[in-house]
């Protein structure tokens, strides 16, 4: 009976994973199409600066116009792109005149490293502050961290990136400062809500130390939500990486997104949007699965 139930549970688990993978794939495909459509119908689409080059012959100008004309019919263009991508051909960047696969491979590692470092610093800072405030029960610490994160929330990521350049601080620190207030605020609210739950009050009344309460009664309760927040924070990091990389001069995916948007490079923009959406969706789905697993185990 027990074995049958666990087999059924494993089957349901696989089904859930498969459903999420399918949903993630559909999200990525639809997201790529949305980006392409937005680009296609944005005012100014099709105006290519190369057409102003007086040195180009009429044949070259006609070739540029033909290349743009194929991008005008967005559905056939997108379908063609997907078919080529399935065979490993991501196309050629119009602005950089290089294979997109090569460009992404070079830049992806830089952004991944930047995001990982920033997420580590932001999570460490937020968790230590929240738990220190919880264990030490210092109202001054909670108040100062709340005011600090409130002020940081009011500064745009780009301004924080510029300030980091001004202070000669590394780029990942700027990204960490963008992420920290959001994590800190959510974790503080979550911990405050959990600390006032009846079982925590009962534990405190029984004379357990604050560290014991935190480890035995608070962390197990908030674990699922913290995992979900971990997934969301990856998305936040990817989004904030665009201004940080562009303004700090870090040659990653964020800077590439900015440059390709300025250069109106549609093939590169579609690839970038799909890559970014895939990253965000995978992080969210992974976090959802982990928190669901923990929920089932509990």
């Amino acid at each position, binding site marked *: 009976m027990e074995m049958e139930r666990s087999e059924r549970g494993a089957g349901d688990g696989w089904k859930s994973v498969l459903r999420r993978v399918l949903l993630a794939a559909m*999200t990525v495909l*639809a*997201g790529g199409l*949305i*980006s392409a459509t*937005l*680009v296609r119908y*944005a*005012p*100014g*689409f099709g*105006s290519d600066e190369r057409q102003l080059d007086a040195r180009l012959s009429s044949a070259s100008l006609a070739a540029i116009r033909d290349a743009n004309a194929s991008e005008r019919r967005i559905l056939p263009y997108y379908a063609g792109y997907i078919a080529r991508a399935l065979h490993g051909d991501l196309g050629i960047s119009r602005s950089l005149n290089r294979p997109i696969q090569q460009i992404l491979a070079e830049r992806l590692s830089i952004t991944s490293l930047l995001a990982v470092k920033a997420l580590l610093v932001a999570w460490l800072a937020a968790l230590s502050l929240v738990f220190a405030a919880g264990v030490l029960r210092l109202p001054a610490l909670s108040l100062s961290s709340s005011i600090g994160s*409130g*002020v940081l*929330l*009011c*500064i*745009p*990521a*780009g*301004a924080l*990136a*510029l*300030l980091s*350049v*001004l202070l000669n601080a590394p780029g990942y620190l700027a990204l960490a400062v963008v992420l920290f207030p959001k994590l800190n605020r959510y974790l503080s609210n979550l911990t405050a809500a959990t600390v006032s739950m009846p079982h925590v009050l009962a534990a405190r009344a029984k004379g357990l130390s604050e560290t014991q309460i935190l480890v035995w009664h608070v962390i197990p309760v908030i674990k699922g939500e913290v995992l979900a927040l971990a997934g969301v924070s990856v*998305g936040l990091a*990817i*989004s*904030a990486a*665009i*201004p940080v990389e*562009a*303004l700090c001069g870090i040659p990653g995916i964020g800077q590439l*997104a*900015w440059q390709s*948007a*300025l250069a*109106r490079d549609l093939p590169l*923009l579609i690839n*970038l*949007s799909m890559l*970014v*959406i895939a990253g*965000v*969706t995978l992080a*969210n789905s992974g976090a959802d699965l982990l928190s669901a697993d923990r929920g089932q185990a509990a």
Partner: protein
Amino acid sequence: MKAIRLAATVLIVVIAMASVLGSLLPVFDYARQDRERINAGVSAAHWLGTDDLGRDRLSRLLHGTQVSLLLAPAAAALSMLLALVIGAASGLIGGFAERSSKLIIDLFLSIPWLFLLLIVRAMLPLNTSPALSAVVTFLMLGALGWAAPARILQARASRLRHAPFILLARAAGISRCRLVSHHVLPNLRPVLLAQFWISVPVFILAEANLSLLGLGVAEPLPSLGSLLRELESALSLGSDVCRFAALMVLILVVSSLQIAVPQQEAC
């Protein structure tokens, strides 16, 4: 807490009034250049000094605050309208409409917002006028920022659909229009208003990020975001405190707006 909220509201009203009244005065011309005083410090003629082109910083700050404070609520209103049409309507209808709109909302929420803004804003023709660039930037913010409020409105509308008073009204034979105008909208209003006030600072910050990347409101028209680009020249020209004035005002405006919103009604 009530006192702090009141203080924040008073502060935002004072800043808004100062920016509107100040920008109406002819002395505060944001585009006039004083070629004799480029990057000048604080003086009787220029209370916050001048920028790299000899333009009065205070005038630009007043006009920039006005642009951000007028256009961000307009963008938030557009966003709320879309959220109401897509989120609340599908929540009320239920069934396939609710499920499909939920999928669309989830899809928009999984696409980094700034990335989409960057793509669309960069596609504007290079000869777009400054005023049009400001309007289009905030229009885009409104048109792309509807997903998060839509999800909250959809959840609230879906709950309302099963509420006893709505069922009772339906059983009494009330028309659909009357049901929406007399029973649904008044119940959605607090959430809608809270989401509106939450969106305003979010849009001001998003515009600031776009402007810092050179894709926001075009020169010479100032906005709080475009004024932050002065921080870039602070790197090479030394950190004159007045270069940080726009950042200070931005922090004041955004924090006041965040404090003034009753957070418990937001979700």
